């Protein structure tokens, strides 16, 4: 086997900076070297985690509106200053009218900017959530076994007692080829969540349950890296199902979990 991939090559691999020849050579090595494959996976997961966390600082709405007003009307600001001096004795009514128009323009610009930022922030949060659950699902697939390994819902559910600030129900019955495999305590958006692991045929599926968030992300479906992501809400819980299984089967599991939350 050739020498291990250097840290710089592993970095460049995660960053998509290898030349085609370097990439081919690295891939050949990774096929035979478990240690480097592990390091490469670690590198990608670290990059992904930094990417998610790196977006955490958002400008306040007030600041965004102020900057939007400044950027939308920079020329106006200059013209106002220049215009008021030579025409100081001019028609006062026209000056007030101009000021009113300018204020309205700036206000509308600021409002549009805030709305636009809100929209972008919501989309960005949704993308971040999709990436986060997909990563957590991949991490579960890479791990040997979940933190609690049991197909018994009466074992899995109590395991979360004291670990989560909410409780949940598991379905009484699952379809014939669907089994509960276990569960993990993990984190989404820095909040503790339950990751329930199911087997659907030969596929693994994760269902994340958490207390209802304040983010506007309910009811979305997405696909990321070949994995289907389905979100649902039930009472005070928010659920997100992730798997590479047929989306209809995943939706069926999500519906069962949602229905289970209505049980006493």
């Amino acid at each position, binding site marked *: 086997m050739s020498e291990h991939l250097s840290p710089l090559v592993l970095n460049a691999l995660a960053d998509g900076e290898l030349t085609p020849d370097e990439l081919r050579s690295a891939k050949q090595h990774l096929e035979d070297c478990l240690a480097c494959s592990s390091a490469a996976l670690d590198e990608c997961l670290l990059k992904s985690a*930094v990417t*998610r966390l790196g977006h955490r600082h958002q400008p306040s709405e007030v600041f965004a509106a102020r*900057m939007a007003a400044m950027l939308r009307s920079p020329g106006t600001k200059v013209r106002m200053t220049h215009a008021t001096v030579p025409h100081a004795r001019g028609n006062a009514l026209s000056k007030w009218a101009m000021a009113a128009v300018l204020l309205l323009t700036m206000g509308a610009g600021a409002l549009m900017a805030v709305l636009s930022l809100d929209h972008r922030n919501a989309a960005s949060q949704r993308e971040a959530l999709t990436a986060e659950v997909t990563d957590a699902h991949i991490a579960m697939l890479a791990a040997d076994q979940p933190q609690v390994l049991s197909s018994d819902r009466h074992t899995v559910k109590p395991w979360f007692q004291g670990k989560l600030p909410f409780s949940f129900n598991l379905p009484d019955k699952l379809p014939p080829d669907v089994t509960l495999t276990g569960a993990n305590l993990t984190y989404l958006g*820095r909040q503790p969540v339950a990751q329930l692991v199911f087997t659907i045929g030969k596929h693994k599926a994760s269902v994340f349950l958490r207390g209802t968030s304040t983010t506007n992300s309910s009811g979305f479906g997405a696909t990321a890296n070949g994995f289907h992501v389905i979100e649902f809400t039930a009472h005070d819980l928010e659920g997100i199902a992730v798997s590479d299984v047929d989306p209809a089967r995943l939706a069926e599991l999500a519906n069962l979990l949602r229905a289970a939350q209505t049980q006493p």
Partner: protein
Amino acid sequence: MTLLPWRRKTEAPAPDTSSFGDLALPLLPALYNFAAWLARDRGIAEDLVQEALFKGLRGFSTFQPGTNFKAWMFRILRNTFLTSHSGLNAMRTVALEDEINEHTGAPIPENAIDRRTPELHLLRLSDAEALERAMNKLSPPLLEVLLLADVEEMKYREIALLLGVPLGTVMSRLARARSFLRRELAQVNEWAREAGQ
């Protein structure tokens, strides 16, 4: 500050030079985020962004249409940070051994990469708070490269041009930054394991 024309060609269409606001406003969240990480203070970050936007607005005539506006604005913001009080304090410590000799290979130590099984790493990475603490401990030269590569998804050459450093320095700083994060997270994991015993 001298605003140098940004010469790197990009695939982006030529921007409308008549509207600085149209180009700069979509960058506001990214600029603020970058400033907040570097300054570690919301108020200072707002001041830095506002000053950078003013400088960009004033120097917009020097910006070459069709070149990379985002990199141009990030460079202005970074220079604003470097000349600020907090920036001057933060940048006093700069790793002198950053330069690497690209002819003889990288001097990044082999132990910068942990080749053990990844299960422990996966658990560590689920701890966002620990990762945030580790990122906040990074020196500004390492943090800025990490943010530009991982958060702003800039290419190495783009970052090298923005920072005005050789490509090898970007690669070296990135490797060192990630190595530092790995070590910090490993330590957190070690403490958690000891506490669990």
